[in-house]
């Protein structure tokens, strides 16, 4: 019980993430089919399942997932475990219930727990950078529920997993500095995590590069840096070898990426231009990425507007300048690369999903803004409220918001809020297991057991309110901020 109380923040985050299931879509299906192919058919192609997904490549008459294979490879372990459990219990693997349990479980293990881990490492980083425990707790909750980390912790995309891996390495680097230890195993672990991030989401290469340079720059000497680099490469090697082996297995070359074989003409028309569809950053896309009502990051997550002020406050404090540069570089590079990518809007998505791996690095500076004074801390609370409401609504109704004309498409106000007004949640009817639409493709645990739309949303809300009733009451009473004291430094 004491453990539960001490870690209630992360338990609640995990429960909230597990509560929502978003059904299928081409992206998730493509990753899931690859996992299934490896475990069940011991094959790298998804040919038997390919009619169920648009996100696929074709090579020598067979169809393949066009995604970076990392997440699917990671998922083979829990998938195999689920299958073993099904066999042991005699459950019909093709039945609707076990199928949903299996994929819901995979989503939670791969993305949900990644979201929890990202929150945990973010909080750890904030504490190591000098944030008071209260501020760290508030920002961790804000990140977990008030940013795109929330919806993307409930889908089998690679973004949240990559986010967890990146912020984990950030925290580990900070911790090494705090403890003044520099073991080889530490560098090897970092290398392994960075490599995993790469093979889960190729675009995180820029963030990995920034973190790697930062890690090496902090070595006491060139010799130590060289040794650290060598150990990091040694740690990364097994992951990269597995990745290359998979590519060789699938496409006959260890460097032939899945994106080279995309089938869909609309995708191929762009992935064959520039570097896999990445060209020059575009100003109009930059506006849409940050401020647009269609996919704008700040529109969906108003909390992150304070990142700008946070970077300024951090700069003024003259603390942790190197970490400031790291966070700023990761954020700027991610935004620049997204604005240069042809599919900057992420297709069926909530907000600019390609920015999800960099979001922890936009939350870190807000901690410095909170230290500017009581009014600054209150501004964070004020900004968190709409962020959490918007993200909760999107997660509850539809994460895979359809793509459209950025000039008049508004997923939050055009789809999500009207659905809530009509007492509708879990709109997605795309299903991983069926070509045709399925009414029960998406759900939350409340609607799954028969609760009404609004009532079902009260369950996680009540869990948070009950767990933090005293902090909420105190916060409202003295307006000095919420005291999320349940999470303490390990």
């Amino acid at each position, binding site marked *: 019980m004491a453990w539960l109380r001490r870690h209630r923040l992360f338990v609640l985050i995990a429960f909230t993430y597990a509560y929502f299931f978003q059904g299928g879509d081409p992206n998730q299906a493509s990753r899931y089919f690859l996992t299934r192919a490896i475990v069940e058919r011991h094959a790298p192609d998804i040919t038997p399942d390919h009619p169920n997904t648009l996100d696929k490549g074709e090579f020598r008459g067979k169809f393949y997932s066009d995604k970076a294979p990392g997440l699917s490879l990671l998922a083979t372990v829990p998938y195999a475990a689920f299958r073993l459990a099904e066999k042991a219990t005699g459950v019909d693997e093709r039945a609707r219930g076990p199928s949903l349990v299996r994929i819901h479980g995979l989503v939670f293990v791969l993305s949900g727990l990644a979201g929890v881990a990202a929150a945990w490492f973010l909080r750890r980083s904030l504490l190591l950078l000098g944030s008071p425990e209260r501020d760290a707790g508030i920002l961790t909750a804000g990140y977990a529920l008030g940013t795109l980390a929330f919806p993307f912790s409930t889908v089998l995309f690679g973004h949240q997993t990559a986010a967890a891996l990146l912020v984990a390495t950030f925290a580990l680097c900070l911790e090494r500095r705090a403890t003044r230890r520099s073991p080889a195993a530490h560098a090897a672990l970092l290398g392994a995590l960075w490599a995993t991030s790469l093979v889960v989401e190729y675009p995180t290469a820029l963030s990995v590069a920034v973190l790697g340079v930062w890690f090496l720059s902090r070595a006491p000497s060139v010799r130590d840096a060289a040794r650290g680099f060598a150990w990091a490469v040694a740690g990364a090697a097994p992951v990269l070898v597995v990745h290359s082996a998979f590519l060789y297995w699938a496409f006959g070359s260890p460097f032939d990426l899945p994106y080279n074989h995309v089938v869909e003409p609309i995708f191929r028309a762009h992935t064959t231009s520039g570097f896999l569809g990445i060209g020059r950053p575009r100003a109009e896309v930059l506006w849409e990425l940050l401020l647009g009502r269609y996919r704008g990051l700040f529109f969906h997550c108003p909390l992150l507007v304070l990142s700008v*002020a946070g970077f300024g406050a951090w700069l003024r404090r003259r603390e942790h300048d190197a970490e400031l540069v790291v966070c700023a570089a990761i954020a700027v590079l991610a935004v620049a690369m997204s604005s240069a990518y042809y599919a900057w809007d992420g297709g069926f998505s909530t907000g600019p999903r390609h920015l999800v791996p960099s979001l922890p690095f936009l939350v870190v500076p807000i901690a410095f803004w909170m230290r500017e004074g009581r009014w600054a801390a209150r501004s964070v609370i004020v900004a968190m409220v709409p962020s959490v409401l918007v993200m909760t609504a999107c997660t509850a109704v539809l994460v895979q918001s359809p793509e459209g004309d950025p*000039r008049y498409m508004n997923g939050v106000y055009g789809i999500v809020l009207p659905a809530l007004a009509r007492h509708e949640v879990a709109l997605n009817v795309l299903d991983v297991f069926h070509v045709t639409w399925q009414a029960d493709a998406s759900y939350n645990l409340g609607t799954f057991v028969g609760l009404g739309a609004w009532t079902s949303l009260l369950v996680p809300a009540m869990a948070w309110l009950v767990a933090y009733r005293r902090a909420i009451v105190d916060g409202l009473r003295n307006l000095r901020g919420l005291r999320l004291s349940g999470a303490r430094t390990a």
Partner: protein
Amino acid sequence: MTTNVVRVAIARGFAIASGALAIYVAYAHVASCKTTRAHLEEPVSMRFDSADWQRSVQVLVQNGLTTTVEGDRLRVRGTTDGVLELAGPSRRLREATVRLRLRAHDASPYDLAVGIERVDVDESFRVTWGLRNDPERPAWRFFGDVRGSPPAAAQHFERQRFVRFDDTDRARDHEVELRISPELHAVLGSVDGVAVSSELAGWDDGVMVRPVVALRGRASGRPLDVEVFGVEYEPVDLALGTRPQRIDEHFKSAILDPRTWRVLRADDFAVSGKWSVGGGLLRLQGHALRATREDQAIAFVGPTVDLGSFHATVAFKANRLHRARFFFGLSNLLVGLADWRAFDVGLVDGLTQTEPYAAGHWEGDGQFVVSPFSGALSGVTEGELAIDYDAASGIGRASLNGQLVTAQHLDLQPPEPVQIHFGGRVATEEGAFDVNVSSVKFEPIDWRATGEIARHAAPPPPLPDAAPRGFTDDFATDSTPAYHLLQGAAAWESASHSLRLGPSAVGYSEIVRGRFEEPVTVTGSIHVPAQAARGDYDSAGLMATDRTGDVRWFGVIWYGTKLATELHLTRHVPGRADQFLAKAPIKLEPGKNYWVKMRVDRNNVYARAWPNEPNVLEPEEWMASAPLDAAWSASGGVGFVANAPAALVGSLKVE
């Protein structure tokens, strides 16, 4: 210390920026609330499950048919003389479906269909899909109007795909559904969930419509018995838009994005066309196989957008152009509709070399015009074709490598939907072309949002201040600064108190003055040189331009050695072949001066000429006249024109 000050300043700047962003985000959320309200507009449901069904359904016409509610349906009985039309509440049209469930009990001749009807215009425009019941040939088909807007010309579906309705179907209920797509400009008819027919249809996004059910007999005295179940009208989300979209295509991909380009290829029987893309080039090739007339070998069609002001270019290189043409331009709906309109510019192989040409609809008569022209741009095989369109004035300008090919008042009507296109056509059985295209750009200007006029279009030629009516210039002094030289050269001749026009690299020298209001009469003196001083095709006379300066009327004397001496009324548009609309013979004596008088009223242009001699009276009758075209816009300038290396003109009088 300095570093610290800088840091503080940056921190404050970031805080201010953050505040500004927060304000904008808050505004964006508040402004977005209307989006939610719009999406909460209820779909229309017309039910017949209670006796008071007429509270939610309006009966537009009921004549000779009786209706009774039976369970959840409306039973309609009577004879095929009768009519029954029902309508629901109005909605603003966007992508939508309207469905009706029906059962036809007999084989009598009547139509039963469901669809939509305009309610924001006086005339009734309607498009429906349903059953054309018939004892001989029952079928599912469209009814009504493909345009949804006036004029009514060619408003009915002319071609119908025959979809048979079998007699065995009568025993069952059927659900007919009409999907209206303002975005795609199409209607789709389906029966029992299966799409069976589609047509182009110009129903626009945002017009007010209401769902309708129409039952209409087509004979007399035959029994009619049908059941009509509920009608559902539902908006459908379609993430497309016809708002102008920017295109900046450089063909660097391995394939073309099908959302941007549709490729239209020839049939490979009469004409063959092929294309390849990659490495920054799109290669178009085509040749005739059995062609007996001009035919399109290949074309690339862009997305449908609302017509507004725009600037569009294509960068090309014609490797081969033989009995063929390469074109770039735009048209409204490409096929099928009678109101097809276009504006193209391109290259065509002339007798000895390539020539630019323009084609399209600009006469205001709905007819397609093709105008090749030769000149300084002859022989050009590489460069950039450009089209600038000013939605406010309706003027389209086509140019090749920055030089104007033509400027026309187009028949296209903003904001009608249009598509840009480019491609190749072959003219004869020998026709063939091979053209590389390296970029296509389309930069729209949403004039509905900005009200901006012709940002890219070159402004009309400036005209000098209005000249007073009744003004006379005998050129006793150098008054040329008060005139506007449109092209060529003009110089004052102090000795003869006249103007010398020419030489001109483009042929014509044109100089005008004033802004006149019709009717206007202008008189000028023209010197006819000695025979030895004349060129083969020399001419000189008066001219009047329209407001834009693009359309010009000439009243000129032809005196070139290879020409019959005549007075001509000629309509001239830059980049187009001149239109010689009226002429009259005139006897000319070398070395003498002749008066030319030209009159423009609101309907016609007139001209006459006579010797500038003291004892010769002005003729009473006009020698040549021609009607003004409908697109003529008054208030241009008047002056002299000459197609000669050195023509002397003088004594201008405007009345």
